[in-house]
């Protein structure tokens, strides 16, 4: 397979996943902003954390836009100046897909193309009716549809492995970021989450990764920060947890190794990251500090992405 093609496919999946995660982040912020008992800065801090997670805060400040909810939502969802907006991600996904149409199934291409063609209309409708959530739901739905189409129709070969690698590297990054932004309100081990707002904030972390119900099912108790962290870092049952993502990354690298008849250096880093998660306990994570742990993870995850690109796509 052409190196350029692998690169396009990998980024196609990353951008689709990113668009979905941005929608999730905005959804949570929107939900928080509707809380009646938030006082003073409460509102804005929720929007601000959405910007921190999506990494666009410096760019937003540069833009000189008013720091209010409407401007921030526009900036993260629709802005063409923000290369990490939902709009730009879907555009980039589609451009990457268009460059490698021959490697996509017809269904994948149609899903991708329809998403791009419908984007403007959906956004305008949602804005007009003041129902931003309808737009975010639609983005999530399109991403889910794309992933499902990919999963259900794509040949299990190198193209598939590269696209899955893109999905899970991006997802791991996102889960780690969402968790990290909340680290500063983490309470000591064992304690219940404090007042209404805290509680609500932790619930929203769970919602952001579609894990609220799973949490209740697995822990059968009220959300506790360190258990939430455990769920999102170390529980393999949880499909957006770091360990789950790493497991998928290792499996897809294995798929490549099998097809190509050999491993590349990036396999070692992925394997190492995966087994460390496997043999780490929640206590150990907290002893060293969750923030430190997540910061290290995010940087290693980045490096893994770069290594994979270097090993297979000869771009670096």
């Amino acid at each position, binding site marked *: 397979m052409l190196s*350029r*093609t692998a690169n396009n496919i990998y980024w196609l999946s990353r951008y689709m996943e990113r668009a979905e995660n941005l929608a999730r982040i905005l959804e949570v912020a929107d939900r928080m902003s509707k809380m009646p008992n938030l006082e003073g800065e409460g509102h804005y801090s929720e929007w601000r954390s959405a910007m921190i997670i999506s990494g666009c805060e410096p760019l937003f400040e540069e833009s000189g836009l008013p720091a209010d909810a409407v401007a921030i939502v526009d900036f993260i969802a629709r802005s063409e100046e923000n290369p990490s907006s939902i709009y730009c991600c879907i555009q980039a996904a589609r*451009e990457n897909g*268009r460059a490698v*149409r021959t490697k996509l199934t017809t269904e994948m*291409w149609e899903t991708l193309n329809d998403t791009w063609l419908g984007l403007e209309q959906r956004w305008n409708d949602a804005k007009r009716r003041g129902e931003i959530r309808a737009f975010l739901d639609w983005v999530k739905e399109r991403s889910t549809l794309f992933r499902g189409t990919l999963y259900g129709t794509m040949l299990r070969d190198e193209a598939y492995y590269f696209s899955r690698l893109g999905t899970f590297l991006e997802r791991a990054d996102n889960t780690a970021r969402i968790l990290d932004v909340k680290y500063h309100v983490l309470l000591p081990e064992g304690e219940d989450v404090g007042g209404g707002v805290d509680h609500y904030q932790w619930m929203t972390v769970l919602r952001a990764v579609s894990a609220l119900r799973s949490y209740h099912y697995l822990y059968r108790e009220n959300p506790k920060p360190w258990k939430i962290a455990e769920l999102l870092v170390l529980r393999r049952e949880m499909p957006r947890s770091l360990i789950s993502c790493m497991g998928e990354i290792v499996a897809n690298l294995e798929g490549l190794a099998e097809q190509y008849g050999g491993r590349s250096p990036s396999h070692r880093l992925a394997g190492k990251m995966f087994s460390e998660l496997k043999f780490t306990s929640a206590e150990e994570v907290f002893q060293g500090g969750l923030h430190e742990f997540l910061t290290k993870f995010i940087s290693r995850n980045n490096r893994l992405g770069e290594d994979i690109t270097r090993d297979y*796509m000869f771009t670096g």
Partner: protein
Amino acid sequence: MTEPAFFDEMTLADGAVRPAYKELSDWLTSTPAEQFRLKRREADILFRRLGITFAVYGEGGDPERLIPFDVIPRVLSALEWAYMQKGLEQRVRTLNAFIWDIYHDQEILKAGVVPEALILKNSSYLPEMQGVDPPGGIYSHISGIDMVRVGENDFYVLEDNCRTPSGVSYMLENREVMMRLFPALFSQHRVAPVDEYGDYLVQTLRECAPRHVEGEATVAILTPGIFNSAYFEHSFLADQMGVELVEGQDLFVEGESVFMRTTQGPKQVDVIYRRIDDAFIDPLTFNPESALGVPGLMNVYRAGRITLANGVGAGIADDKAVYTYVPAMVKFYLGEEPILKNVPTYRCADQDSLAYVLDNLAELVVKEVHGSGGYGMLVGPKASQAEREAYAARIKADPSDFIAQPTLALSTCPTHVEEGVAPRHVDFRPFVLSSGASIRMVKGGLTRVALKSGSLVVNSSQGGGTKDTWVLEE
């Protein structure tokens, strides 16, 4: 001046419906006009969803446009097709023989059948290709021969496209869309399929692989990239053939071979179906500014270590003055009578013809010998006096750059337009695949239709559309 009588492919002058159109005519009568509008909208949505667009950058508006598609098919009988197929095979065989001859012994020039100056001083003649042996001896692997019809048995070749004829993806996708829109109509007709085109193409290309290749040759399509107007077609064909779609940056030359950069390191390529013009293919040999091509590619080609399809230098056969000699070439190379007729053509390079052309501009269509796409031509009867005068000045400045043809009474086909179903002028581009071993064609081609009432210009860049073309089985 009386309105010339056009041959309509469905309805004869006396009102009788031609046999090939019998079912279609009934269908047109029984289908309410609203239905066509709905289906047309549906077709637009399908084309957009499939991403079948034709890119026009730098003119403002939507950069990804749809070529207008007419939902009423054009029908050709089995007999009509059999005649055309025979004629097309003969013509393409001749054209390949001609290009080979030009780049080798130039027998046809020595025999005085084609004037030496027309070839050797032609900008489409590439001296770099003299003596080069392309694998299989084929230059035009994919030929698009533009044909028009003026009567029941009157077919003419309008021009030969031996360089990089495009449009075949529309032939294939038009069929796909028609089958989705009107499945019932297909069960009433015995329409010959066209979807084996991709298989034929890859077989043709593999048969033309360089001699040293053992086993199955590796084929790739070379595209200028996603900003090219025909990018959709390039990716579509790569898909149909199951081969890689590469850009110049994906290829490199090392030693005597061409490689593509893959996830597993370099992989040797044997046949390149290139959709890049000669001038851009190798910055070391031709245009040094080209970022689209592959440095060193021509050396490998000259050494016979890679097949380029179409071959370099094939454009000499597309020249509209050279065209006038094709019937003579058929006799010269094959010793046969030409099956397909040429449109009578005046070469402005000849003094007598030039005088005639200038005197009769109002009746003629004048074209640049290297032109394509309907650009730079004069349709005499449609032009104003001022336009004709301006054009006459251009002809006088360089007569050998122009040819003229009588304005043909192109046949019409029923077409869905604003006012309802009305006759519109059409032309036809079938695609002929040549390897040294065989000639392959699918039964069909691209029908282009001039959507404006009375217009004879069918080019998509000039407001033309396309139709599905049905060749009926016996």
